């Protein structure tokens, strides 16, 4: 962060531009000075938002998580009751955790794998490359919408397209959406289908890798697989890391597809009961808002833990050129 030279700085002092603020306490403007007031004026909307819509609610939900609260009556303190109930007396909660973990563990690597593979294919002087990129990207743009979730339900239904396709080869289909064994996997597929935006990010990263490195590797007799493993992957690790962090955070919060495909129930047999869907049911269907707040805080901690683990592990495998 750079600091601009203060016009009011005493004459004869060295200008301190682009360095830390080295002015002595005597010359530093007092709190409530004009300089501060102008800045705070610019920040006024953000301050209000921070207070009322971010920091306030964050602490508010922490408080509510220790209460029983139904929106209409004042919250009643229950200590760790909500947290205790979640892990000892609520099979649906544990089910929602399980479903969400399976979803994250399956979608993140598969989606990023596809994204990287297609990005590598497109990162060549190829006719129509821009077209391919657009077409592969479009599902990612539209995929989060209710419309696509609606369509997905139809594609994998009893008389859906997948079964017609299987019947063509004489394979007997089933209702993929209404079977508890397969419903979650159709949603996993829906998320993998949206590999377009990590693909675009990979593509941008691949373009940064200098061609000389590939040429040098070729001269040394490296096969294309070897070049991928020893040149592409190491130089791309910062971007792989970035995508992993982002996708994990997003996958934990998936909601729309499960809600739309299951009609809000998380069914069949709670097999698509995503964490956020159960949170929604508790908070807004049953008005257990204290319980929902406790769930939100556990989700926050889970996501924070995963992100910290990611950053911790990053030192072992992410390669930064300038280090």
């Amino acid at each position, binding site marked *: 962060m750079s600091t601009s030279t203060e016009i009011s700085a005493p004459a004869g002092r060295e200008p301190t531009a682009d360095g830390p603020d080295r002015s002595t306490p005597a010359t530093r403007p007092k709190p409530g000075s004009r300089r501060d007031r102008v800045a705070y004026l*610019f920040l006024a909307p953000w301050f209000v938002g921070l207070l009322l819509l971010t*920091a306030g609610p964050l602490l508010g939900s922490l408080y509510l998580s220790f209460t029983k609260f139904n929106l209409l009556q004042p919250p009643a303190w229950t200590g760790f009751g909500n947290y205790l109930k979640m892990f000892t007396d609520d099979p649906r909660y544990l089910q929602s955790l399980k479903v969400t973990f399976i979803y994250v563990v399956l979608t993140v690597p598969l989606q990023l794998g596809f994204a990287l593979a297609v990005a590598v294919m497109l990162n060549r002087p*190829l006719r129509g490359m821009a077209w391919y990129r657009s077409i592969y990207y479009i599902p990612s743009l539209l995929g989060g919408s209710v419309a696509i979730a609606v369509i997905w339900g139809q594609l994998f239904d009893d008389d859906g397209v997948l079964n017609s396709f299987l019947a063509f080869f004489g394979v007997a289909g089933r209702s993929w959406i209404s079977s508890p064994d397969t419903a979650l996997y159709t949603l996993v597929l829906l998320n993998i289908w949206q590999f377009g935006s990590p693909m675009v990010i990979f593509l941008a990263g691949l373009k940064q890798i200098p061609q000389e490195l590939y040429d040098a590797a070729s001269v040394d007799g490296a096969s294309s697989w070897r070049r991928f493993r020893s040149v592409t992957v190491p130089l791309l690790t910062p971007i792989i890391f970035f995508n992993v962090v982002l996708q994990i955070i997003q996958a934990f919060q998936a909601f729309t597809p499960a809600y739309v495909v299951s009609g809000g129930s998380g069914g069949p047999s709670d097999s698509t009961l995503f964490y956020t869907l159960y949170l929604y049911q508790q908070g*807004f269907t049953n008005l257990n808002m204290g319980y929902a707040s406790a769930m939100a805080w556990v989700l926050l901690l889970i996501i924070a833990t995963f992100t910290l683990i990611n950053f911790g592990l990053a030192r072992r495998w992410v390669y930064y050129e300038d280090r």
Partner: protein
Amino acid sequence: MTTLQHTPTDRRRARRWLTHLALIAGTLVMVYPLLWMAGGSFKDEKDIFSQLNPFPSSLDPRNYIAGWTATDPTFTRFYINSLLIAVLAVAGNVIACTLTAYAFARLEFRGKKVFFGIMLGSIMLPAHALLIPQYVLFFNLGWVNTYLPLVVPNFLATDAFFIFLMVQFIRTIPRTLDEAAMIDGCGKVRIFSRIILPLTGPVLITTMIFTFIWTYNDFFAQLIYLSYPSSETVPVALRRFVDATGDSSYGQLLAMSVLSLVPTFIVFLLAQRRIVEGIATTGLKG
């Protein structure tokens, strides 16, 4: 023309063809669901599921006309709601985020580092952790079933990601411009409105595009805050359409699904390059 001898050029050409073949096969898989939806919206009820071929025999707009007016109020209302919310959200983000970003990028004030850290931290915060108290607040203000809970937060710069994006951008604008204006007697407000704001064009457009797409496609907040039929947006109405029509009118459902994607698609066509660049350089979720 063909020789049995495989020269390196031959092999490269064969490889290129294989790449194209794989990419085209992939393309078909990727667009099939979309084609199926678009084609089905023009088909008879009985043909939608029985035909694998996504292309309809004729472009009969019947399903579109029937679907548009199948609900009460009609989809006209839902589109007005959706587009109004999206436009207001865009305006809010543009105004509030630029003001905030300018302060963080150019002004000096007490607590700057701390506040900047808080702002960055809030980007990663999952919305669910704030959800219940925000709902309680809006409920007590009597804002449930109005647009306000969906657009007022944008006017209070809660989309911190865009602040960050703009701070990064404003830092690349040469400070000599500010200093020249200051010598000419401009205050911070005039520097902001005359120098910085006009130069933030590209990042403003990125902000507008993504705010529009995200707000238009958002479902969770709209589901929670809008429950009167007259206040519903397109995604919420579409979702209710599934329940209301049940198994009876898939053609209409597909037609309305197609239409609901049109605004996003138009934005994509108009701003394709910028969207791709925005994702590539900042990791925005598309």
